[in-house]
C-alpha cells in the first residue's frame, strides 16, 4: 500500500514494485485516505511519504502511529527527500519493529528497495545507509569508533541499517562465522552486550551513535 501526494512518484513506485512481484493493494494521496484503505484491508506493509498535505511537515509519521494502533502487524516504511537522525530515533523508539526510514532515492535501486520492503513487512528495522554513513563517519570526542577496523566499520554500518548476520555474510561475501566474529568484536570494542534481535541491535547502535 502506498501513500504520497506526488502522483508521478507514487505511480512510478507502484509500477516498479509490481514489476518486482509485489501486489500494490492501494494508493493514497494523503494520510486520511491511507488510513481508510488500511482500515478496510490491512496490507503487509505501507510505504508512506513523511511530508504530506495539509501541513507538509511530518504527517506521514503521525499516520504511521495511527496505523500501528489500528493494525499492529502492518510494516511501516517511511520515505523522505532527506533523512534526519531525530526522525530515525523517533521511529525506532516508537515502533521498535517492522519500521523503515529511507530516502526516496532508494526506490530507484529496485533490488535493494524490494528487499527493504520485505524486511519491514517481516518486522525488521531498516535505516537509510546515508544516515548511518553520516553518523559512523563523524568524528567524535574520545571516539570508540576510532578503534574499529575498516572492515568492522562496514559491518557496523550494515548492522545499523538493520541487516541480519546472514544478510551481512551475503553482502560482504564472507562466511557467517566471520560476520559473527566481526559483530562480537564490534560489540566488545563498543562495550555493547551481544543481542540476537536485529532491531535491538539497530537501537543499540543508534543510541550509541547519538550519545
Amino acid at each position, binding site marked *: 500500500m502506498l501513500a504520497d501526494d506526488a502522483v508521478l512518484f507514487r505511480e512510478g513506485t507502484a*509500477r*516498479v514494485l509490481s514489476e518486482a512481484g509485489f501486489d500494490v493493494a492501494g494508493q493514497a494521496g494523503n494520510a486520511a485516505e491511507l488510513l481508510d484503505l488500511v482500515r478496510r484491508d490491512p496490507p503487509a506493509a505501507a510505504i508512506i511519504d513523511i511530508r504530506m498535505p495539509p501541513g507538509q511537515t511530518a504527517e506521514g509519521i503521525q499516520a504511521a502511529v495511527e496505523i500501528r494502533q489500528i493494525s499492529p502487524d502492518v510494516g511501516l516504511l517511511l520515505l523522505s*527527500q532527506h533523512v534526519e*537522525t531525530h526522525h530515525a530515533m523517533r521511529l525506532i523508539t516508537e515502533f521498535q519493529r517492522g519500521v523503515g526510514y529511507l530516502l*526516496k532515492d532508494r526506490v530507484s535501486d*529496485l533490488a535493494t528497495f524490494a528487499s527493504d520492503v520485505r524486511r519491514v513487512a517481516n518486522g525488521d528495522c531498516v535505516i537509510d545507509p546515508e544516515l548511518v554513513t553520516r553518523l559512523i563517519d563523524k568524528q567524535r570526542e574520545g571516539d570508540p569508533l576510532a578503534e574499529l577496523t575498516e572492515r568492522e566499520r562496514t559491518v557496523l554500518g550494515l548492522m545499523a541499517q538493520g541487516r541480519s548476520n546472514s544478510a551481512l555474510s551475503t553482502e560482504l561475501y564472507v562466511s557467517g562465522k566471520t560476520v559473527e566474529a566481526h559483530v562480537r568484536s564490534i560489540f566488545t570494542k563498543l562495550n555493547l552486550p551481544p543481542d540476537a534481535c536485529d532491531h535491538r541491535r539497530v537501537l543499540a547502535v543508534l543510541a550509541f551513535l547519538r550519545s
Partner: protein
Amino acid sequence: MAGADVALPAARRVMRVAPWALGGLCAVLVVAGFSLGVELSNLHNGLIAAAFTAVGVFVVAKRPGNREGWLFIATGLAHAVMFFGRQYGLSAGHGNDALPGAEWVTWVGVWPLALVLVLSGVTLMCFPDGRLPSPRWRLVVAAMVAAGALLALASALWPVEYADDALSVPHPLHVGGYETAQRLWNLIGPSSYSLFQLAWVAAVVVRMRRAEGDEARQLRWFAYAVAMGAAAMAVGLIALRSPVPGVLAVPVIPLAAGIAIAKYRLYDIDPVINKTLVVGTMAAIITAGYVVMVVGVGRLIGVEAGPSPVLSLVATAIVAIAFEPARRRVQRVADRLVYGDRPSPYEALARLSTQLSRGGRHAELFAGLASTVADGVGAAEVTLWVGADEQLVAVASWPPPADQRSQLVTGHTQLAALQDGERAHVRRIVHQGSMRGAVTLTKAPGEVLTNSEDRLLHDLVAQAGLVIDNAELGVELQHRLHEISVQAAELQAAAKRIVGAQYEARRRIERDLHDGAQQRLVTLALSLQSVSERAAATGADDDLAAKLAEARHQLSQALAELREMARGIHPAILTQEGLEAAVGFLAERAPLPVRVDVRLQRRLPQDVEATAYFVVSEALTNAAKHSGASSIAVAGRLRDGWLRIEVTDDGRGGADGRLGSGLQGLVDRLATLEGQLTVDSPAGGGTRLRAEIPCG
C-alpha cells in the same frame, strides 16, 4: 428668556447713556456755580468736578467696563454738587438775596465733604484699574468710610465747617451742643482729612513699588501729575503766597490719570519726567545761585541799593561755566531716578552671557536679547530680526507683544525698509563675515543714542550674531537629527523586511525544490529503473546496460547534490522542528565533535530561528575550517525575551577583526532584528561567538 433678551440691550443702552447724562448734570452744576461768581476758596471744587467728570466720561466712553472711569465720574459729580452748594451759599453771603433756600442748598454743599474726601481717596487708591491694591485695603476703606460718615453726620447736624469756609449763610438746623461738637471737630476733623490723604498716597506708593510693565507706566503718569500739582502748590505758596497755582494745577491729576488709563501706550512719560526733573533742578540751582551771588554776596560787601550789575555779571559767568557739568550730573541723577535699574553696559553684557550660557529655547534667547538691548540703551522699542539683507524676519521684540499669537511682523522685510523709520536706529548683526540679522530700536521722542549707549549697542549686537548662530545651528542640528533618526528607522524596517523576504524566499525555494525538481528526479530515477528492467528482460546488450547504470548513478548523484543544496538554502528541519532540532542536525553533520546544549522550550519567530541557525552553521563551518579546534560546544537559552546562543571552540583563537564574509553578513542580519554578535577570540584561547537576538 424674552425678558432677559430685552433687558440686556436696555441695560447696555443705559450704560452707554448714563456717563453722558451724568456728565451733562455735572456741567450744568459747574456752569451754574461759576455763573454765581468766582470764589477762590471754592475754585478747586469746581475744577475737580469738571476735570474728574470729563476724564471719567472720556474713559468710560472709550472703555465702558473701566471701573476707574466710573469712580472718576462719581468723584467729579460729588464735587460738582458740593461746588454748586457752596457757590450758592457764598453768593448769598455776599448779599445776593435773589437766591431762595440758600440755607439748605449751602448745607448740601458743605456737610458731605468728609464723605466726598473719602470717595476721592478711594478713587485715587483704586487707580488705575478701579480695584484696591489688595483685599487688605478694604479694612482701610471701611475705616475711612466709617470716619467719613461720622464726620459728615456731625457736619450735617452742626455748623462745624462753616467758619473754615467763610460761609456767612447760617446752618439750617439748630441742634444743641454746638460748642462741644465744634471742639471735638477741631480735634478730629482736620486730622482725619489729613489721614484720608495719607491713605491714598500710601496706596499709590505701595502700588508703584510692586507694579510692573504697563501698570508701572500708568502709575508713573499719575505720580508725575501729583508731583507737579504739589510742586505748583509749593511754588505758589512760597513764591507768590497764593494757593492759586496749586489749585489751578489740580486738573492735571485727573488729566494725567485719564491719559494713563486710555492712552498710556501712545505716550511715554519717562522722558517727560526726566526732562522736568533736569529743567526744574537746573532752574532751582540757577535761581539759588543768583540769589546767593547777587543778594548774599551783595549784602556781605555792603551793596544795599539794589542788585549790582557787576555781581549779576559775575553770577551769570559762574552759572554759565558751571551749567554744563552740573546739568550732566543732574541728568545722570535724573536718569537713575526715572529709569531705575537700567543696567550698566557691563551688567547688560553679563546678563546676556548668563542667558546664553543657560541655553534654553532660541525663542527665549531672542526675547532675552531684545530685552537686554532695550534695558541697556533705554530704548522704547526693540525688534530683533534674523536673516540676510533682503529677507529679514522679526523673531523677537520688546516690549513683548501683548498677544503672543498675533505677535510681530510676519513675512520678510528688507533692511533698507527698516532704516526708513525716523527715530529708528538700525544695526546689522554680522557674524563671521556674513549678515545674520539686524537689531532695530527706537528711543523715546527727544532722546538720542549717547556714545556710551552706542558702544554698548555695538557690543550687544556683536553677541547677537552668536545667539542667532547658535539658535540656527541648534534648529538645523535638531532637524538633521530628526531626519537621520527617521531614516535610520526606515532603513532598519526596510532591512528587516528584506531579510524577512529573503528567508521567506529561501523557504519557498526549498519547498519548490522538494515538491518539484526533487520529486521529478526521483520519478525519473524510477522510470530509468523500469527501463533498465525492461532492457535486462529483453536481453539488450551490455553496452546499453552499462550506459543505463551510469545514467542511474549520475541521477543518484544529482539527487544527493540537490538535497544538499536545498538544505543549504533552507533546512526543512528548521521549519518543521525548530531551532533545537536544526542545531542538532548541524552538529551531526559537522566534521568535528559538537556538544549541543540548546533548550528553548518554545518555537521562536521564523526570522529569529533562521538567523540563529545560520549563525551556528557559519560558526561551525569557520571553526572546522580555520580554528584547528578539536571540539565545539553550542549552547542556547531563551531568557527575558532574548535568545542567546553561543558557539565555543577550543582552537587557536585570534579571530578578532577577521570575521568571514559570511559572518559579516550575519552581523547585518542580526542588526535588522536589533540583535548583536560578539566574537571573543584571544590568541591561543579558542573562539567564542555569541549571538543575542530579542524575540519578544
